[in-house]
Structure formats: structure tokens, C-alpha cells
């Protein structure tokens, strides 16, 4: 395993004001070259504080930030900040002040503006750009410095869905081409998933989980993380009995049971978590094990995905379909559907 480009070790940052005290406590967190770490958490969980600490803008009360990369650590703020002058000037001033020659500064300015699709705006006054163009300018300016580490605070704020998607594609490509280590902070799971290779979750100042994207999405360590990473089907149960027929069944009550890949000891209180995309409706037997019928209560579609709210004999469950295709076109509230899950896609969280 390669060493992280930037790493927080036993980091404690304290912030206090009249309203109260806040402590950020991160024992170990690393950013790796060419990889995007998405930091998720509710408002006030300490996401921005962590980012500022990694940028060296917050003095830690304990622990340290270890920099191994040769190259600048730069940050792009949530509210995009541009300097008075042209688009080119914004990049050039950062490059020239770093001691680069005029030719080199010019070359990198061009390259970076092209990378973010705003080369045609080079001579424009930066103050006259649209929201999306301003975001692109702040990113182009950061990339022009050829940073080893890039810290992004809510990079998709105020952009519409199409703008988020196109910017995430350009950003993703720029990260791959430059091999920069990236941390991106956001409170919006969908925006995080546009970029994330790894996910870290903060809860009231503490790092509660950090790992590969799929691991965190599918195996959250607690109920809060489960909610933050979008595991919206959560049912409180107790391992009462596990029965055979080749599958391990977890009984929730007399009429509900769910197949699991392995069950803890009988009597253990658990949360049963199923990601919406893992709950299947009306599919062939090969794609999951049926768990009973669900009655469709609501169907909400944004044109891309349709979210179904189903009543599984007293429990509310959600799943997603692709909008305007197959089942999603014909379904109506009141329809009864067969629900299926795969045992390995049912996640159990111990209830304390």
C-alpha cells in the first residue's frame, strides 16, 4: 500500500465561541494520490473544520498533519472567490507569485482553462461569469498550480443537475490525469457519489467510519451512518430464531422474515438495513429471494429515477427503478408487488 499524500494523525481541533465549544477528533485519515475521499456528515459535524485543518488553516490542539507529497496543498472554498480582473489574471497571478516564468505561467493557464472548458472566457472579467463558470474558474486556478493535494468544500453547490454532472466529469478526468489526492466535503450524498472512491463519515466532530465507497455504502457501522449514506430501509428487529432450508432466515415477527448471509446470536437486537437499490420488485428467482408482497403507496419520479414507497405488511420500504422504463411506466398506487432481496445485500447493525 502506498503512503498517503496527506494524513491526519491523532488530530484534535478545538473551536470555541460564545455559542459553544466544538471539538474535531480524527485519529487517522489519509488522502491518496489519484483518489477522491468524500467526507460526509450533517451540518455542523465538522466537515469544513476538517478540511481547513488539512489545508493548514486551523492550528490543531493535538496531533498533526503529515505532508508527504511534493507539491502544493490547495483548497477551493464553498463560496467561489475570484480576484478582480480577467479570468486569465486569476490563474496568472497565482502562477507568477509562485515564481514561475511568464512562458510557463502562460502555458499552464491555457492548459488549465482548456481542461475545465473555459478557455474561450480567458479575457472576460471574472466578475461577470455565471455561477457554473465561476466554479470552473476556481477549479482551473487550483489545478494550474499542479497541486499534490486538493481540498474541495461543496464544489457543486448552487449548480443544477446538468451542471453538477458535467463538472463532475471534467473534475474526475482532471483528477485521473494529474494524479492529485482529493478530499471533497459535502452534505449531499448524490454529489459525493459523483466523485468518491472512498467515503469518510463525520458525526459531531468524530470520524465514525472511513473506507472504500462500496464498503461504507453497504456496511455502515451505525444507524446514523446508514442514514447518511442512503441506506433508507431500516427495520428494528431481534434475532429470535434462525431457520434453515439452506438459507439463514432472520425472523422479525410472525409474518416478516428476511434472508441473511449470517446471523448473530439469538436475542441480539439489530437494525436490518437494505439499500433501496438492493430491494427488488417483481424479478425472477435468480435475482433474489422473495420476502413477501409489498403494496405500492407512492411513486415519485424526477425523470431519471423513480422512487417507490411500498408497504410490506406494516413496514415501509423504498426502492428505485429507472424512470419511464419497464415497470416504472405501468405501476400505479395500490399495486401488489413481490419483494426480493439477496442475503448478502442485507446488512445488520447491532442495536444498543
Amino acid at each position, binding site marked *: 500500500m502506498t503512503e498517503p499524500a496527506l494524513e491526519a494523525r491523532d488530530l484534535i481541533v478545538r473551536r470555541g465561541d460564545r455559542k459553544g465549544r466544538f471539538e474535531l477528533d480524527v485519529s487517522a485519515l489519509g488522502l491518496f494520490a489519484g483518489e477522491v475521499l468524500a467526507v460526509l456528515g450533517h451540518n455542523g459535524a465538522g466537515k469544513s473544520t476538517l478540511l481547513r485543518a488539512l489545508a493548514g488553516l486551523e492550528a490543531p490542539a493535538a496531533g498533526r498533519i503529515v505532508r508527504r507529497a511534493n507539491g502544493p496543498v490547495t483548497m477551493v472554498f464553498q463560496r467561489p472567490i475570484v*480576484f478582480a480582473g480577467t479570468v486569465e489574471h486569476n490563474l496568472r497571478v497565482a502562477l507568477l507569485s509562485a515564481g514561475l516564468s511568464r512562458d510557463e505561467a502562460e502555458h499552464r493557464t491555457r492548459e488549465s482553462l482548456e481542461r475545465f472548458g473555459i478557455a474561450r472566457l480567458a479575457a472576460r472579467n471574472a466578475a461577470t461569469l455565471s455561477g457554473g463558470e465561476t466554479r470552473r474558474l476556481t477549479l482551473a*486556478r487550483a489545478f494550474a*498550480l499542479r497541486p499534490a493535494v486538493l*481540498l474541495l468544500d461543496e464544489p457543486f453547490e448552487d449548480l443544477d443537475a446538468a451542471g453538477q454532472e458535467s463538472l463532475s466529469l471534467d473534475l474526475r478526468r482532471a483528477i485521473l490525469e494529474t494524479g492529485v489526492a482529493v478530499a471533497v466535503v459535502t452534505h449531499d450524498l448524490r454529489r459525493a457519489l459523483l466523485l468518491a472512491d472512498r467515503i469518510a463519515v463525520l458525526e459531531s466532530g468524530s470520524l465514525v467510519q472511513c473506507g472504500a465507497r462500496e464498503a461504507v455504502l453497504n456496511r455502515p457501522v451505525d444507524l446514523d451512518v446508514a442514514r447518511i449514506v442512503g441506506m433508507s430501509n431500516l427495520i428494528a428487529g431481534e434475532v429470535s430464531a434462525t431457520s434453515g432450508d439452506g438459507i439463514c432466515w432472520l425472523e422479525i415477527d410472525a409474518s416478516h422474515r428476511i434472508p441473511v448471509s449470517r446471523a448473530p446470536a439469538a436475542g441480539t437486537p439489530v437494525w436490518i438495513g437494505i439499500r433501496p437499490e438492493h430491494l427488488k420488485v417483481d424479478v425472477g428467482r435468480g435475482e433474489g429471494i422473495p420476502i413477501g408482497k409489498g403494496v405500492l403507496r407512492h411513486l415519485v419520479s424526477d425523470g431519471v429515477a423513480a422512487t417507490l414507497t411500498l408497504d410490506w405488511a406494516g413496514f415501509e420500504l423504498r426502492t428505485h427503478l429507472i424512470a419511464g422504463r419497464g415497470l416504472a411506466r405501468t405501476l400505479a398506487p395500490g399495486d401488489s408487488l413481490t419483494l426480493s432481496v439477496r442475503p448478502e445485500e442485507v446488512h445488520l447493525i447491532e442495536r444498543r
Partner: protein
Amino acid sequence: MTELTWPLVGEITARTLRMAFFSLALSLSIGLPIGILLGRSHFRGRRAVVGIVNAGMGAPPVVVGLAVALLLWRNGPLGGLGLMYSMEAMVFAQVVIALPLVVGITLAAVGALDSDWDLQARTLGIPAAWRAWLLLREIRLGLLAAVIAALGSILSGVGAVLMVGGNLAGETRVLTTSIVMFTEMGEFERSIALACVLLGLMLMLSAVLTAIQQAGRR
């Protein structure tokens, strides 16, 4: 009876410009850093300081003149310097009047910047001297507003200048004080002539400053 000749008009105008130049230069070199620091920092008592600056922006020049006169008077705290009725005394009073204007307008211009402006510049690795230059560029409209306001109050001020300068011929007689003097003597033609010079001066300077301020706006 003072004869108003062209050389005399020239001499009075030159003295006026000299006084304005030194007063403005001092006000800006003291007021800009204070305004920038006050606008970008948080400390206990900042509000009180800002309150004093705001009050100072509206301070009556005559009161400032009295205060400076009391300071510079033979038996006053600074009496030993022997500055009363001198060019230095006039510049002193003008700076006291113009400084709050410079600080107040700079403060407002700097305060309008994003609170993360410095941090963004720092995380781009931009060194302090470049950051200061970028900051001045950022607030250049406010900066020129401060210059115009300060220059206006310096050129038009008469109360304080008269009190601490004394309108001494060949020493502290400037355009405004001579206009007051000729009017009191009933010499309206001379007053009007000098008033035209003062007005012309003011118009010329504000035309130049406006041109600078509006240049590069697209």
C-alpha cells in the same frame, strides 16, 4: 489693502495644493493600513473602534480645529513644538479631519470582500506582498472613493485651517481662507475670482480621479 495679482493667486494656489498633497499623503498612508486591518480582523473592542471612526467621519471641522489649536497652543501639550500658525499645523488638522474618512471608506470596501478571501489567497500559495497588492486591486473603487472624499474635505476645509493656520500672508494663506478674508472685507470680485480657481481645481482633480476609477470597467 491686499492687491490680488496673478503671481499672488499662483502662490496661494500652490500653497493650497502643497497642503492638500501632504494632508492626503499622510491620511492615506496612515488610514489605508488601519482600514484594511480593521476590516479584516476580529478583536475585542473592534466595534468601539469602528464606532469612533464613524463618529469621526462626521466630526465638525471647527471642533477639530479647536482641539488641534488647544494641543498646539503655547501652553498646550504640544506647545513646545511651536507649530501654531504654520503649514504643519494646518496639515495636522486636515489629517485629523480626513483620516476617519479614509479609514471608514477603506473599512467598508474591505468588509464587502468574502470572509474567506485571505484564506483562499493563502491556500493558493500567494505570498503576503502579492496578497496585499491583490487586496488593493480588489478594493480599488472604494479606495478612489476614499481619495476623492479625503481630497474634497481637505480642499474645501476652512474652519480648522483658519483656526490653526491663521491665514498669514505668505505663510498659511490658502484659497479657502483668502476667500473668507476677501468676503469679510467686502471684496466680492476677488472672492469670486479665487472661488473660481478653487472650483476649477476641484473639478480637474475629480475628473482625473473619476477617469482612473472607471478605467478598466467592462
